[in-house]
Structures are given as structure tokens and as C-alpha cells.
């Protein structure tokens, strides 16, 4: 009796069969042996016994035989599987080559979708899930968060403390080590033309101990290099800085006006306890001393540094929290000397986005992840449509193969392998996309977070593999189901033309779904763009997009009071500083990109100063919520440079000098408050001190915002910078660019400033708008995020729509041929195809608008001056989307109309 080859038997029931067969063979063996012995004259009974004895333990033998047989079969089955998959892969590869167009669209669509998600997952991982790199046992590392009640703010908290506060905490028994650090800031390194800006962070020597980091090169600084009052000028540079300056270790570098010796290099990716990028760490005592001399040692009022601590092994979080709270309570009592109900300390996780004050970017990153997820969903729907379309196109081929005996499960498996193959290609594209997009997303959405080297990590690779194959499984589902359910006789008969209604309806539904989702994102984009526009159209009193701010940290020079002898002496620090800025302005206004430049003491959005101001004849000025009035010392070109309108009277001139008549200019709000009934021009005001002579108001200017975009009335006045009555207030320069290319202007200005004197520190020159960025961030971010991902989604869905229509036109060539032959006009056939497209878009847009209207309340609180259901946004998006969709439909429609009836009919 012939047996089927063992290979093709299913595993279920296989073992039992193996077993039976082995037993049968052994029994046959015994029987042969008995026959043999009987033939030699042994009596049958004895022969039987001898035969069994000779064979040994039959049961054991059978078990052994079965075991090795099973092992062998498993191995062979695996090999069989592999060869099957290899076959399928070859098949998939051939298919992909045959349809390069569709394959590229699928791979590109999936690649973009997966890539976007990979980047976002990586960022979320860094911010929400991972402790800072190089921090072993990070669960024992905490960031103390100090909370107390204040009169102005109510219950409020922060990570900030000061030198005495840090020392109190460092004495706590619960911690094995406590560190203090200051957030990095740009500081000048070097002098003159070679000067550069570096991100410097002050850190206590214990920072590296607390985190547990080891230097990549050299050493970190030691506790005895970080003692008050000024530490030892040593520095540790970041890995990135070291790579750019490979011979820096052992060198001396000039930071501001102190010369530091570089003693070590931090490990790659190390950014301390937070994620802000740092170029260089210096002892915090050295930095504090540079900032404020010895004052910091006793200063309990300034809150300038954050702390991070490692718990002792035998101490619980609760115990440590209790001890830290007691210490903090003492600190608050001695500092403020007023009863503050229960100040307390929260020991927050060192994972950046956890804790009482999560980084705003974390929320943003989660949003982005969600939006990226929607894009991937759309990409999936699109790819499913394409695969399904292809499966339908191949229905005849599938039917032929089915009738030749391939099993449906094998066929479905083949389709799955095919999508896996596509997914793998897509994963490769995704990683490439992610590598490029990482930088882009970092710059556009998440400034101030150090870029990690995350994309290459094993975690990220695992994730991308999971996403890719999950995506493949989902997208392969529909075509696989389709393949299984192909109706043999119909497909063979119809030459692959017949498409059942449900199938095409499924594809239409997927297309509607894609359009709807991208409409939702686009509406989001519209709402944020409108909000941003609204915010940006608030008059600020200055042409902020054209302005550049330049600051130079000149050696400390207290400004001598006006009229004193020193002010006249040409070699006093003040005179030297004024000379520097005079020369700087002279050089800067010669630059071709520069329209004008001004030197001023108060800088809008940066700094403002208030001091005694009175109007003779009025007891007191009404107090506005915003405080003030605020003073500013400006030169003759200030208002023209900023673009601030002079409403009445005049601006300052060069004639308003130190020794000429004292004058002042007030802003609109101050004029309205101080002289409600009369013209302020010619009025007398006393500035700085009652003993000083009257300053005459010579002009009224429009309000310039002092601090924020969304602020109320501000009372402000201006005096000529030469008549500035205070010792303090360092001037800076504001430059007006001729063009919108302010970044370039900023570079030119920096270069010009660097050559003013050979000992000029690195000038900090930035487009003015960058100072506004944090205030506009939420709207700008929303606008960019939804615009980028919304457009991506929309493009993908339009590709989907186009593919769908183009395919159905190809399918219906025959039908169109007949129609044309029967006399249907071109317009009729075009209308037929367009109608299908319009129907999908209409449903998609309508559905999308409804979902958007429902979902938009989640972002309502983030919008400015427009409602989440702003009709103009919805209408605009609907119109634009429909117009584009119509364009995407026209090409296939036109192709349908140009079908040659003769050819189409002959094709069968």
C-alpha cells in the first residue's frame, strides 16, 4: 500500500501515525526473526521469546525512534517552510518589479507614515520614558521640586533654589549625593574676531556623581575645584564640542573674562539631568562668582539653580521627602520671615517629562505622535486600497492558480508574504526618512531639547519592525480575504473584468475614510494658522520681523550718574562703553542689509526698568495692573529703527545730549493716564529723583509692548540715553534689516561687531522675533504640526483617490468602449468618472468636517480669538480640498473619455 510522503502530512495526528508505523515495523522485525528461528528448528514459543530478547526493550526503542523521527520531521518542515517563503519572496520581488509604479507608491506612502511615527516615538521615548543617558539606577535619582504659598502667585512651585538652599539640602541624611546646576546659556568664548558663543552650564562637582556618569576622556572636576567663592576655572566639554574641537583637552579657553582649563570630555549624549543641549560645564561656584561676585554665597532670595539628588540605598522616597520638606520649611521661615502654610518638597522623577512641571514639549510630542498615528492610518488605508486593487486586477491569475490546485490558505499566505516584503522595503525607507526628519522635527517643533542619537537604537529598530509588520498585517488583510473568496467560475469567465459591488464599495469607503481624516487634520491646521495670524496681527508698536537685537557683554562698568565728573572723563568705563557702541553703530549702519540701528537701555520683550516718576501738580498716578511707569533710555534713531509711530511732538535728536535741556517722551497710555484732559507736550515730569530738574515732555509715541504679546496697557516713557539718570542699565543695539532675511543680517551684524575692538567678547546677535517665539510657540507649533502632517495626509489621500479612479477606469475600459461605440459623448464619459470622484470627496469632506467639528473642542483652549468651529476655516478647507480632489479626478476621467472603442472591444 503506497503511503503519502511523510512531509506533507499535517502535524496534527502526525505523531500518532508515526508511533503506529514504528510499532508496526518493530513487530514485523520480531516476526521475521521468529520465522528465521523457526526455520532453523527452534520451537515457535522459544523462538518468540528469543526474538524479543534479542531486540531488547521494544517500548524504549520505539520511543527513541519516534523522538528522532519527530525531530527530523520538524527540521524538514522548517526547511519546507523556508523554501516556501523563499518562493513567495521571489514571487513578491517579481511582482514588485513588474509593477514598479504601484510598488514605489506603496513603499513611499508606508515609508513616510512609518518614518513619521518612528521619529515621534523616539522623541516621546526620550522625554517620557527614558531617564537621562548615563544614569544608572535612575529610579533612585530625584529632582526636588519646592512648593510654597506666596501672596502674588498663591500655591506655586519650582525646581529652583539658591546656594544656601542647595547647601541645606546637601546636608540631608537621605541622599548619598546632591548636585546643583544652572541651565545652559549662551556665553562668549574668546575675544575679537575669533570669539564664539557656547552653551555653558554651571554644575556642582557632584553632578557627575549623582547621575553616575563617567568621563569619556580626561576627568570631571572635583569637589575641591568647586568651592566658594569662585572655585577653580576648569571645564568639561560635551562629546559634540570635543568632536568639533579635538585638541581642546588641556587647552585654556576664555569664557567671558575668565580663562578656564579644559580637563575632560563628557560621554556622548550626556546632557546632565535635563535635555537641554550643553557645550561646556564649569564649576557652578565659578559661574556664580562671574555673575554676582561673592554675593551668591549668602543670597537666599534669588532662585537661580536647580538640584538633583541620589537617594541613599536604605532610604525610601517617603522618608527622603519628609526630611527634604523639613529642611525646606526652615529655609522658607528664615528667608521670608512670614508664616507660609506648609512649604513642601516633592521629589520628582528624573525622567524629563514626568514630575509636577512637565516640559511643555512633552505634551506637544504626544500630540505629534497622535497626529503621526493618523497619518499612518491614512497611509494604511491607502496601501490597503492599492493592494486590494491589485488583488482584483490579479483575480484572473488567482483564479487560474486556484483551479490548478493551489490551496486558498497558501495563496493568502503568499499575499501576506508579499505585503511583508513591501513592509520591509517601507521600513528601510522609514529609517531613512526618520534620519532626515529627526533633524527637521527637532528644529521645527522641539527646540531646546538635545537631539539624541536615537534613530539607530535597538529599541527604535524593534519599534519600526513592529510597526512595519503590524502595518503589513493590517494592509494585507483585505486583499488576502479577497483572494480566499475569489469566485472561480466568474473570474475565469469574465476575463478579470467583473468586480463585485461590495468590493468596489469597500475601496470607496477606504477612500472616503482617508479624505475625511485628512480633512480633520487640515481643519486643525486652518484653526491654528488663523489663530497665529490673529496673534501676529496684534500691533506691538514695532516692526518685530525686521529687527535684530545685538548684545555684547562688555566688562562691568557701573554707569556714573549724569553730571558727575567721571562721566566726562574719556577713559572711564562708561565712556569706553559708550564709545564702543558709538563705533559699533557707525559700522553697522554701513552694512548693505541694514536700514538703521539704535542703541538703547531698555529692550522690548527683554528688560524694563521702573523708577521714580512724578508729575508736578499731581499727587500720584493711578496704578495700572501692569505696574510702571517704565523708563527707557534711547538715542535719536530709536523710534525710526523700531518703526514706532510718533503721534505728537517730536522724537529725540542728537542735540538732546547729557548737558542740554532735559527732555522726555511718553507713550500713549501714560499720556492718557497722566494728562487725561490736556496735551502733554510741554508738561514737566520729574524722573529719578525729586531734586533733579524738570524734564519737558516733547513727544507722544504709540505703545510698544513691554513683555508679552498679550498684555494690557503699559505706561512707558523715554529719556535720551545721554540723560539716563541711573548707575545701572547696560545698553544693547537694535538693528533694522532692509530685507526679511533677518538671519543673514544678524550674521553680518555679528561680524561687524566682532571687529570693533580686538578684545570684544562674542556678540549675542539674534533676530528679534526669536524672543517672541516662546510666546507664539503653541500657536506656531499647532499651525506647523497640523499643516505638515495634514498636507502629508491629504497628499496621500489624493494619491489614493487618483489610484482608485485610475484603476476603475482601467477596469471599465471595455464598458467605456461600448458606450463610446453606442454614441456616448466625451462629456458624458468624463462626467461618469468625475461623478464617482466627486461622490467620494463629497462624502469624505462632509464626514471629515463633522468629525473635525466634534473633535475641535479639544483644541479650543489653544486657539486665539477664533472659535473651534470657525465657519470660514471649515469652508476654506472644504473648497480647497474639493478643488484639489477634482483635479485628481480629471486625469483618469480624461483617460476614460479617450478610450478607443475599437481597441477596447478587440482586447478580449
Amino acid at each position, binding site marked *: 500500500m503506497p503511503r503519502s510522503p511523510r512531509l506533507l502530512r499535517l502535524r496534527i495526528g502526525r505523531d500518532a501515525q508515526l508511533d503506529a508505523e514504528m510499532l508496526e515495523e518493530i513487530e*514485523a*522485525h520480531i*516476526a*521475521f526473526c521468529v*520465522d528465521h528461528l523457526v526455520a532453523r528448528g527452534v520451537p515457535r514459543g522459544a523462538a518468540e521469546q528469543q526474538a524479543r530478547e534479542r531486540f531488547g526493550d521494544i517500548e524504549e*526503542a520505539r520511543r*527513541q*525512534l519516534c523522538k528522532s*523521527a519527530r525531530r527530523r520531521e520538524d527540521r*524538514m518542515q522548517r526547511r519546507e517552510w523556508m523554501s516556501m517563503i523563499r518562493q513567495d519572496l521571489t514571487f513578491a520581488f517579481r511582482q514588485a518589479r513588474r509593477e514598479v509604479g504601484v510598488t514605489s507608491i506603496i513603499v513611499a506612502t508606508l515609508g513616510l507614515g512609518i518614518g513619521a511615527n518612528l521619529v515621534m516615538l523616539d522623541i516621546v521615548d526620550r522625554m517620557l520614558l527614558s531617564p537621562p543617558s548615563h544614569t544608572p539606577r535612575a529610579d533612585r535619582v530625584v529632582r526636588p521640586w519646592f512648593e510654597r504659598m506666596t501672596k502674588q502667585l498663591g500655591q506655586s512651585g519650582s525646581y529652583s533654589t539658591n546656594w544656601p538652599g542647595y547647601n541645606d539640602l546637601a546636608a540631608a541624611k537621605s541622599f548619598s549625593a546632591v548636585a546643583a546646576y544652572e541651565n545652559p546659556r549662551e556665553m562668549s568664548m574668546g575675544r575679537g574676531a575669533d570669539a564664539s558663543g557656547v552653551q555653558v552650564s554651571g554644575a556642582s562637582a557632584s553632578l557627575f556623581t549623582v547621575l553616575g556618569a563617567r568621563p569619556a576622556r580626561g576627568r570631571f572636576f572635583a569637589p575641591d575645584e568647586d568651592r566658594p567663592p569662585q572655585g577653580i576655572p576648569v571645564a568639561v566639554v560635551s562629546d559634540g564640542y570635543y568632536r568639533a574641537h579635538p585638541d581642546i583637552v588641556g587647552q585654556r579657553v576664555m569664557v567671558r573674562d575668565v580663562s578656564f582649563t579644559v580637563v575632560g570630555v563628557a560621554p556622548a549624549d550626556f546632557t546632565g539631568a535635563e535635555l537641554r543641549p550643553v557645550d561646556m560645564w564649569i564649576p557652578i561656584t565659578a559661574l556664580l562668582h562671574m555673575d554676582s561676585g561673592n554675593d551668591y554665597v549668602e543670597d537666599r532670595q534669588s532662585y537661580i539653580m536647580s538640584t538633583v539628588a541620589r537617594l541613599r540605598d536604605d532610604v525610601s522616597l517617603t522618608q527622603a521627602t519628609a526630611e527634604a520638606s523639613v529642611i525646606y520649611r526652615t529655609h522658607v521661615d528664615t528667608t521670608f520671615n512670614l508664616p507660609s502654610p506648609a512649604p513642601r518638597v516633592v521629589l520628582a522623577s528624573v525622567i524629563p517629562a514626568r514630575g509636577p512641571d512637565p516640559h511643555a514639549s512633552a505634551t506637544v510630542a504626544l500630540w505629534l505622535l497622535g497626529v503621526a498615528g493618523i497619518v499612518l492610518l491614512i497611509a494604511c488605508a491607502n496601501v490597503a486600497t492599492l493592494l486590494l486593487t491589485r488583488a482584483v486586477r490579479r483575480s484572473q491569475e488567482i483564479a487560474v492558480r486556484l483551479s490548478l490546485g493551489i490551496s486558498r490558505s497558501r495563496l493568502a499566505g503568499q499575499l501576506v508574504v508579499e505585503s511583508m516584503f513591501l513592509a520591509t522595503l517601507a521600513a528601510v525607507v522609514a529609517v531613512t526618512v526618520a534620519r532626515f526628519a529627526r533633524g527637521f522635527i527637532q528644529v521645527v517643533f522641539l527646540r531646546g531639547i538635545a537631539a539624541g542619537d536615537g534613530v539607530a537604537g535597538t529599541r527604535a529598530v524593534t519599534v519600526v519592525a513592529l510597526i512595519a509588520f503590524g502595518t503589513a498585517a493590517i494592509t494585507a488583510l483585505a486583499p488576502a480575504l479577497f483572494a480566499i473568496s475569489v469566485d472561480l467560475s466568474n473570474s475565469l469567465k469574465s476575463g478579470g473584468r467583473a468586480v463585485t459591488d461590495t468590493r468596489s464599495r469597500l475601496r470607496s469607503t477606504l477612500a472616503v475614510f482617508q479624505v475625511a481624516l485628512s480633512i480633520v487634520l487640515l481643519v486643525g491646521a486652518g484653526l491654528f494658522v488663523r489663530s497665529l495670524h490673529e496673534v501676529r496681527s496684534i500691533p506691538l508698536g514695532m516692526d518685530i520681523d525686521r529687527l535684530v537685537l545685538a548684545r555684547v557683554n562688555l566688562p562691568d562698568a557701573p554707569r556714573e550718574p549724569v553730571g558727575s565728573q567721571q562721566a566726562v572723563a574719556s577713559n572711564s568705563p562708561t565712556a569706553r562703553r559708550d564709545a564702543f557702541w558709538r563705533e559699533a553703530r557707525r559700522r553697522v549702519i554701513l552694512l548693505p542689509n541694514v536700514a538703521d540701528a539704535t542703541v538703547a537701555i531698555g529692550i522690548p520683550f527683554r528688560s524694563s526698568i521702573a523708577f521714580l516718576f512724578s508729575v508736578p501738580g499731581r499727587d500720584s498716578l493711578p496704578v495700572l495692573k501692569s505696574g510702571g511707569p517704565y523708563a527707557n533710555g534711547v538715542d535719536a534713531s530709536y523710534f525710526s529703527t523700531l518703526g514706532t509711530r510718533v503721534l505728537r511732538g517730536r522724537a529725540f535728536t542728537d542735540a538732546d545730549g547729557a548737558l542740554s535741556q532735559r527732555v522726555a517722551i511718553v507713550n500713549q497710555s501714560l499720556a492718557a493716564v497722566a494728562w487725561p484732559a490736556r496735551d502733554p507736550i510741554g508738561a514737566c515730569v520729574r524722573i529719578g529723583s525729586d531734586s533733579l530738574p524738570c524734564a519737558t515732555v516733547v513727544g507722544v509715541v504709540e505703545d510698544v509692548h513691554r513683555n508679552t504679546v498679550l498684555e494690557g496697557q503699559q505706561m512707558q516713557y523715554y529719556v535720551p540715553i545721554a540723560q539716563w539718570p541711573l548707575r545701572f542699565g547696560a545698553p544693547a543695539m537694535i538693528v533694522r534689516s532692509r530685507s526679511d532675511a533677518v538671519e543673514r543680517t544678524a550674521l553680518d551684524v555679528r561680524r561687524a561687531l566682532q571687529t570693533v575692538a580686538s578684545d570684544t567678547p562674542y556678540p549675542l546677535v539674534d533676530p528679534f522675533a526669536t524672543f517672541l517665539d516662546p510666546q507664539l510657540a503653541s500657536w506656531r507649533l499647532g499651525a506647523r504640526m497640523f499643516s505638515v502632517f495634514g498636507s502629508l495626509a491629504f497628499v496621500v489621500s489624493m494619491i489614493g483617490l487618483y489610484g482608485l479612479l485610475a484603476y476603475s477606469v482601467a477596469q471599465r475600459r471595455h464598458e467605456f468602449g461600448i458606450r463610446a461605440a453606442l454614441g456616448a459623448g466625451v462629456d458624458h464619459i468624463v462626467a461618469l468618472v468625475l461623478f464617482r470622484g466627486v461622490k467620494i470627496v463629497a462624502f469624505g469632506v462632509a464626514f471629515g468636517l463633522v468629525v473635525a467639528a466634534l473633535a475641535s473642542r479639544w483644541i479650543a483652549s489653544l486657539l486665539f480669538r477664533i472659535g473651534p468651529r470657525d465657519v470660514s476655516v471649515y469652508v476654506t478647507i472644504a473648497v480647497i480640498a474639493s478643488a484639489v480632489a477634482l483635479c485628481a479626478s480629471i486625469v483618469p476621467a480624461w483617460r476614460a473619455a479617450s478610450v478607443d472603442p475599437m481597441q477596447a472591444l478587440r482586447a478580449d
Partner: protein
Amino acid sequence: VDDQLPLLKGTVDMLVLKSLSFGPMHGFGISQWLEARSSGALGLNDSAMYQVLHRLEARGFVKAEWRLTDNNRRGRYYGLTHAGRAHLKAATSTWLRYSASVTEIMTLTARPSPG
């Protein structure tokens, strides 16, 4: 049975294949054939022999088939495949060269030592 030689590793496959080179046989037949050809000096444990047979079958060197014997018993008959024949040929020539060399060396020890 007691003075049977233990089989050298690697030779069993070759011996089994050799036994089948004259025509298909069942397991008991092979074991009888081996015993008879070596005058009882080469003995193979029956269950081990089946292991070998099954392995050879999996590697495609032999093919098995249930058949009826002359006296109407069902037996699983093993026969050489083309691959099996080729393998046997290669194994035989290797073995002959190998054993000749080994024999030559091993017989050298009979020479009297100088001294």
C-alpha cells in the same frame, strides 16, 4: 554475541547502504545480512539500526515502502535511491583509502625497535 566488535562511528551508514546495494531489504534482513557477511563479528543493535535507516531515509539516501514478503508478511522494505548509490560510492572509496593507510601504519609496529 559477546565477541562482537563495536562498530566504528560513521561506518554504520556505509555498511547499511552496502547491504542494500544488492536489492531492497527489510530491517531484519539487513541485520541478518550484516551478521552473516562478517561471520558474526559485526553486530548492530536492532533499534540503533532502525535509527540509521530512518536517518538515511530522511536524507534521501534510501526509500522505504511497505511490501508483502514471499510468505505473505508485511514488511517495510528499504531500497537505495540514486543519491544513496552515489553516496555509497563516495563513502566506499574514502573508506578504502582510509583503511588501507591505517592498516599500513598499524602493521608497522611489528618491526623490532633499534636498540
